């Protein structure tokens, strides 16, 4: 692991909401090309960590370095531009837009023509729009959504909506993909396919993945390293084997 480059470095991260400390003193790293996991019982602060990484919440303490850059002064849009993309626990699609348009929205910053060029339908508009569509369709093909390209996103079945969220996140051209409970609500077979898909995405786009998940089969199956959170504190960190054998983790999950 030492020869791999650190893409995400979290140092002493913490956040308070009023008097409540939701996350405290979290240290963790994600390496380039790695699939890492963040697990913990309900309310442990996992999604809060994602919200801090994307600057939806401003951390109270600690530092986040992404690809060598300090995120302290950055806003939400900056984190996306820097290369962090995420999906949401409760799906957040642009439900009134078509599947294709949802993915095209992900290319927002890659497309550079101005509104005036768009209104006048200049060459730059047509070329960039065509290129973005080609790339979007490729992505939809990978996510097995190509046949639904013109369906309104809100009308898709649940599993497909989750895949579309990943497609949209990938369209922003991330270096790190944050997946918030990607397997929630999926049956075992769908979860199996999702695991293959996540691995494929990592290899194909050469990105790192950090995922929050309750499905232990998925977590233990694809994560190379796992961090366990409990009551906002880091409980344990290590390979799936180490985590499964850690008595503190077992206690947190199963009780005494």
């Amino acid at each position: 692991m030492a020869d791999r480059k650190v893409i995400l470095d979290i140092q002493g991260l913490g956040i308070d909401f009023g008097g409540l400390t939701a996350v405290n003193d979290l240290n963790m790293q994600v390496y380039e090309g790695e699939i890492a996991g963040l697990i913990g019982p309900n309310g442990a602060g996992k999604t809060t960590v994602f919200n801090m990484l994307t600057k939806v919440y401003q951390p109270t303490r600690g530092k986040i370095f992404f690809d060598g850059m300090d995120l302290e002064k950055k806003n939400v849009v900056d984190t996306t531009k820097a290369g962090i993309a995420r999906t949401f626990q409760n799906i957040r699609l642009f439900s009134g837009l078509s599947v294709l348009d949802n993915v095209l929205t992900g290319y927002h910053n890659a497309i550079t023509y101005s509104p005036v060029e768009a209104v006048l339908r200049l060459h730059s508009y047509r070329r960039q729009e065509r290129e973005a569509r080609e790339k979007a369709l490729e992505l939809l093909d990978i996510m097995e959504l190509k046949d639904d390209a013109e369906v309104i996103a809100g009308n898709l079945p649940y599993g497909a909506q989750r895949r579309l969220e990943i497609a949209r996140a990938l369209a922003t051209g991330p270096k790190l993909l944050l997946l918030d409970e990607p397997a929630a609500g999926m049956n075992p077979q769908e979860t199996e396919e999702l695991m293959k898909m996540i691995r494929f995405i990592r290899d194909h786009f050469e990105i790192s993945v950090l995922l929050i998940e309750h499905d232990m089969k998925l977590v233990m199956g694809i994560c190379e390293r796992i961090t366990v959170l409990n009551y906002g504190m880091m409980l344990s960190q290590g390979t799936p084997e180490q985590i499964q054998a850690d008595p503190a983790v077992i206690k947190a999950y199963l009780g005494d």
Partner: protein
Amino acid sequence: MKNKKQLFIFDPAYRGRTASFTLVIAAYVILQALRSSGNLSSLFASLLVPVTCYIVAAIGLNLNVSVSGELNLGQAGFMSVGAFTAVCVSGRLVAAVSAGIPRLIISILCGAVIAALFGFAIGVPVLKLQGDYLAIVTLAFGQIIKSLITNMYLGFDENGFQFSFVENKCSLAPGGKMLLNGPMGATGTQRIANFTAGTVLIIIALIIVYNLIYSKSGRAIMACRDNRIAAELTGIHIANTKMLSFVVSAGLAGAAGALYGLNYSTLVPNKFDFNTSILILVYVVLGGLGNMTGTIISTIVLVLLPELLRSLQDYRMLIYAIVLILIMLITNNEKVKTMTKSLRSRFAAGRGADKKEAA
């Protein structure tokens, strides 16, 4: 190659687009034919330009209300800004640019730009907030603009412009002219607007709105409407995006107002009051949110309806209200909805077959 082309042509967006343009051009041709053959009553003929103005303002408002999802209750205020700007510009340029058409174009452009600037100034503090603030602020803006113009006196003579507020202190040299006259508004305007200009303006408005919607900006605007957080996390700057749609909407209202102002020799500030804003909103809502063709049809019907009911005298606004309610009930009726749906799918099926044959 074939595939790419198909994607563009069969985009559902483009179907609505064709319908809108066809409707506007067909209506123009028919009405012009009727008018030149003398079959159009003078009442109808006099309504042609105002209808086109309201359509342009409603198309702008539709972008704001349904595509961007922000309620704007000050569209008449922006029309007012555009109208009085255009009337002043045109009045000032009468001598310099005597030909009607160039002066009309310059005046409309000025009206649109100034209204858009007002939109920008209002948008800066408001669009960063979530919720109904825009509705409240635009409502206030409409009222303020009305009061401001009611108290403005602007005149010019060979020495330049003279401006005073609340009471008329302009002492113009002989040959000078008052452009704004307080509560009397603008008088003695040369009527240079016409139906053709109005139709061209509608087409330009449609091109701007459609081309904007089906671009990166339009997707961003709708993304912000559908899910603010996800839009931001997709790298979209929300305030800028909302600003774009708001400014374009204000600019279109300004252009519409400019055309309106130049269609009458006298224009009073009270013309563009809160009721006018609400009327334009009714055109948009009744026409169907996001549906430009519907907006055009509903504007035509609702502008003409009170005039058609004029023979009923005192009862006409009552009937107008009843018709409005009936239209809403009928278009929302489940049976009517299923009927239009089945008709649509039949069309779509036919198109699908064509597609397969083509492939």
